[in-house]
């Protein structure tokens, strides 16, 4: 084969019996004896390794490295933190791609650019020419480093065997990087890949270590895959390949960058990029692109075609170059584009639905690909492909696989019907009666036969529940403070005397409980409390200048959802519409609490201080939904005061609202200004929210408090659910009366339960030295991705808890733990003896698959009587009278 180049792993491919071909001047394996289909399937089910050492690797250094990269790349280089990578495109002046590439920032002071093997010479010529205008040094380090892609659900396990258990990348997120040693040899790892696997890495090692790692990975169970499988995998992932989806176009000219779906991630128009190469052309393409997304084709001449995934529905195999037709009138029988990549690929068939989907051993085949199509063509369009003279039907699909259910890439078959339930034709009285029967069954099952361990749940007392259902449950009592009447509450409706009194008493009782001056009780959920506070903070921030567009919040410090932060404190939750975007990095201005390396459930206070000094966040949100320890409120308050960092400290107590006190934390004493919470988790209430603040009328932030109140009403509610408001007052009485005994019991029981579970062989998370937990929660690890299965098994045995993703897992489908709370069962009187028995039953079921349902029912049987509530004769009598009065 003449003067073909070889990678350092050439001998390994020969030894494995690979079929070698000429790939862009390199002698590379197209497949190994197992064949492309087996290699593709092994990647999707286990772990495949690919020699990608033929790709170009360029080191970029020098005083003007950032300016140079901003000039030659499509992406915003300033968005890249140390330890991150980003996909980018090298544009030309026409807005077409010289190549696509990946930029890595392994360390401060330099960048690492990886380019396609077939374009190395062209790219280097282009980059070196452009580099002349900058004080920058480009070094081709392709020979110094080898690269092995390690992709598939088991890739992480294999690589962590080599790392001796050390974390591979800085964060467990895509595009995160790591520098470490594996079995004594230095390596760089990137959580990146070209296969569409949710779990996959690229390993960069010294050339002299390449063969060692290749052989070790094979020893550990990986199998080699060649360029054939690399192409089928990336095609299934709808990823572009230069020469197909970028570069020369078969209709003439070159493919515009915005034709490629990934352009919207790879291209940035940040001011810091100045007049980068291709900017003007790309802006025109982008403008057309945005309009096309809104089905406005007025600028289509700037982006006449877009690349989209297509699936063949007829017979045959899609291949590059096949003309595509549409039956739409505007197409007039002419081709609307052509196939840019196509083949037949295997996939594993599944059985079952949703979380109980099982991947079988049987495989199917489907012909899929990508096509360059007229921009007017959208998803679900019916197409026809000309396959060597025969027309076969095809359809545009949004994707071929999905990565959002780790650890597997999930094939999505075109036009799969989702089931809609058949409409019922039974009479309403019959259906009503059946509903009542089923509700009773469910109530008895849950209340008398199950052990309820979901930490965010509780059962309120009979008194609370009864009050929730009687008048004024279905009424309105909207009210607002009126300045004209000295801030007196003005009610809009009649018949609100009783509930008005109740609400005033409730605010006082909640403020007393929380240890603060003021409480807003109209919010009907924990998340709503948070939204009202975020909204108020943003509004308050802008009160000084209402004439310009309102500024959002930033920087905000919170707990990342992966480490247990609550949904509502994330940009994807309640923070969504209030968080600012940094114009320089184009990223949201959120900075997460760092956690201890040896205990990811604990905030690293010293690291936090460093971040506080650097970012000076205007808003700090403590609180988590996966929570084992106290939050370091006091330490952080002391620090921000000393450093004179102007900020607002909020503690979303959510789960632990019922533990406010000396057995856990006193948030206001520690320095929080705002506390929000759910009233129904460890607190005895029905499902509502609450906001507490400690501001005084003479404080600067008193007007913030007033804004919080108006963002609650009318900002978040019109009807504030008067039934549960009434029940909440009873719950507040109960909390204030019984909190000392209850809180002590909850924390003791949690520690005891954790200890018992550990003694039974369960892998309990948290610091054993302090009893694993300081809250009501106990977290037990049950194995990577086994959480959903074990939680379902426990439910079949009447033990109700939830599967939980720990910081080690990629998402809830890969949950590897169970989250349990002792609060509800403590309320029903479980003590040490019961929690010890329960630990045995949980272990028997979770670890050994034993059927313990009868044992659980018997355990619960004796504990259906609620404790920590009023059982005095006086109260009981009043309760009975109320019950008979209401007919409930």
């Amino acid at each position, binding site marked *: 084969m003449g003067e073909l180049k070889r990678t350092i792993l050439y001998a390994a491919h020969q030894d494995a019996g690979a079929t070698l071909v000429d790939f862009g001047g390199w002698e590379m394996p197209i497949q190994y004896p197992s*064949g492309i*289909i087996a290699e593709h399937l092994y990647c999707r089910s286990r772990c495949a390794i690919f020699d990608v050492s033929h790709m170009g690797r360029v080191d970029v250094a020098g005083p003007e490295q950032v300016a140079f990269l901003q000039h030659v790349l499509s992406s915003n280089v300033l968005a890249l933190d140390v330890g991150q990578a980003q996909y980018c495109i090298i544009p030309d002046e026409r807005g077409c791609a010289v190549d696509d590439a990946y930029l890595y920032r392994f360390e401060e002071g330099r960048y690492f650019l990886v380019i396609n093997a077939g374009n190395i010479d062209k790219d280097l010529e282009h980059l070196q020419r452009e580099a002349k205008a900058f004080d920058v040094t480009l070094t081709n380090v392709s020979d110094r480093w080898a690269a092995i892609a390690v992709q598939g659900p088991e890739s992480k396990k294999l690589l962590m065997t080599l790392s001796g258990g050390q974390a591979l990348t800085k964060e467990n997120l895509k595009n995160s990087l790591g520098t470490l040693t594996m079995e004594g040899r230095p390596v760089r790892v990137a959580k990146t890949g070209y296969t569409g696997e949710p779990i996959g890495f690229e390993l960069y090692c010294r050339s002299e270590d390449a063969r060692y790692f290749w052989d070790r990975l094979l020893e550990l169970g990986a199998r080699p895959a060649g360029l054939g499988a690399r192409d089928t995998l990336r095609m299934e992932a709808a990823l572009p390949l230069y020469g197909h989806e970028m570069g020369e176009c078969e209709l003439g000219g070159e493919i515009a960058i915005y034709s490629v779906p990934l352009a919207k991630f790879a291209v940035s128009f940040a001011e810091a990029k100045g007049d980068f190469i291709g900017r003007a052309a790309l802006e025109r393409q982008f403008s057309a692109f945005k309009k096309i997304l809104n089905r406005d084709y007025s600028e289509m001449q700037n982006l006449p075609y877009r690349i989209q995934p297509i699936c063949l529905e007829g017979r045959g*195999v899609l291949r590059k170059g096949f003309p595509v037709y549409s039956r739409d009138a505007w197409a007039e029988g002419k081709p609307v584009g052509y196939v840019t990549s196509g083949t037949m690929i295997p996939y594993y068939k599944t059985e079952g639905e949703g979380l109980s989907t099982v991947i079988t051993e049987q495989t199917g085949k489907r012909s899929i690909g990508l096509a360059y199509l007229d921009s007017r063509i959208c998803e679900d369009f019916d197409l026809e492909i000309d396959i060597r003279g025969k027309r076969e039907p095809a359809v545009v699909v949004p994707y071929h696989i999905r990565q959002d259910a780790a650890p597997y890439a999930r094939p999505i078959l075109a036009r799969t019907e989702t089931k809609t339930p058949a409409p019922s034709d039974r009479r309403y009285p019959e259906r009503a009666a059946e509903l009542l029967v089923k509700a009773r069954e469910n109530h008895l099952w849950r209340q008398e036969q199950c052990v309820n361990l979901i930490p965010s749940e509780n059962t309120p007392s009979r008194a609370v529940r009864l009050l929730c259902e009687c008048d004024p449950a279905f009424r309105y009592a909207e009210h607002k403070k009126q300045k004209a009447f000295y801030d007196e509450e003005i009610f809009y409706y009649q018949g609100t005397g009783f509930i008005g009194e109740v609400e005033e008493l409730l605010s006082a009782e909640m403020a007393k409980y929380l240890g603060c001056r003021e409480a807003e009780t109209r919010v009907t959920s924990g998340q709503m409390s948070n939204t009202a506070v975020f909204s108020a903070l943003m509004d308050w921030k802008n009160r000084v200048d209402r004439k310009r567009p309102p500024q959002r919040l930033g920087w905000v410090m919170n707990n990342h959802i992966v480490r247990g932060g609550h949904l509502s404190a994330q940009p994807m939750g309640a923070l969504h519409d209030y968080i600012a975007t940094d114009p320089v990095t184009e990223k949201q201005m959120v900075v997460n609490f760092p956690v201890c390396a040896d205990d990811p459930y604990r905030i690293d206070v010293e690291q936090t201080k460093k971040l506080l000094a650097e970012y000076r966040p205007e808003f700090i949100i403590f609180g988590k939904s996966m929570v084992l320890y106290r939050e370091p409120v006091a330490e952080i308050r002391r620090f921000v005061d000393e450093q004179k960092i102007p900020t607002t400290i909020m503690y979303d107590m959510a789960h632990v609202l019922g533990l406010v006190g000396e057995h856990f934390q006193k948030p206001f004493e520690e320095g929080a200004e705002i506390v929000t919470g759910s009233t129904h988790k460890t607190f005895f209430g029905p499902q509502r929210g609450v906001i507490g603040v400690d501001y005084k009328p003479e404080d600067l932030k008193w007007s913030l408090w007033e804004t919080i109140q108006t963002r609650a009403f009318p900002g978040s509610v019109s009807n504030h659910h008067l039934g549960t408001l009434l029940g909440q007052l009873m719950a507040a009485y109960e909390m204030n009366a019984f909190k000392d005994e209850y809180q002590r019991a909850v924390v003791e029981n949690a520690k005891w339960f954790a200890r018992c579970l550990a003694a039974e062989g369960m892998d309990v998370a948290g610091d054993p030295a302090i009893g694993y937990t300081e809250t009501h929660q106990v977290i037990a690890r049950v194995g990577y991705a086994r959480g959903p299965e074990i939680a379902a098994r426990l439910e079949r045995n009447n033990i109700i808890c939830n599967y939980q993703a720990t910081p080690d897992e990629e998402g809830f489908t890969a949950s590897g733990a169970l989250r349990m709370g002792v609060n509800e069962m403590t309320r029903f009187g479980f003590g040490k003896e019961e929690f010890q028995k329960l630990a045995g039953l949980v272990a028997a079921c979770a670890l050994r698959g034993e059927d313990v349902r009868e044992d659980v029912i018997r355990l619960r049987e004796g504990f259906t009587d609620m404790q920590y509530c009023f059982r005095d004769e006086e109260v009981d009598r009043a309760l009975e009278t109320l019950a008979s009065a209401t007919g409930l």
Partner: protein
Amino acid sequence: MNIPSDRKYSRDHEWVKMVDDTTALVGITDFAQEKLGNLVYVTLPVVGDDVIAGENACDVESIKAVSDIVSPVSGVIAEVNTQLDDAPELLNDDPYEAWIFRAENITDFSELLSADEYEAFTREEA
């Protein structure tokens, strides 16, 4: 390399197994299937169509490419192996059992080799 002696072979790597003097089954050899790799689609010839020795009868597709099957006989397509519609991989798994078409009224043959001659031929090609 598997080369059964109960049939003849063409230089295009097909095998021909006579059923009677003017009828034969045609398929591809082990050498061919290994070279082609995983086969994912077969476009079978049409029953009733003529085939001419030395000309394309139909094609098979691997992941990467389409390959022509050159007919080793002249005649008429009497039957096609419809199993290959849903399971083209049979050609890889069992190339000598997975016939592609049966030709009848055979009037002519390409130059066919014996098992030994085909073995020597494949050794040269490799």
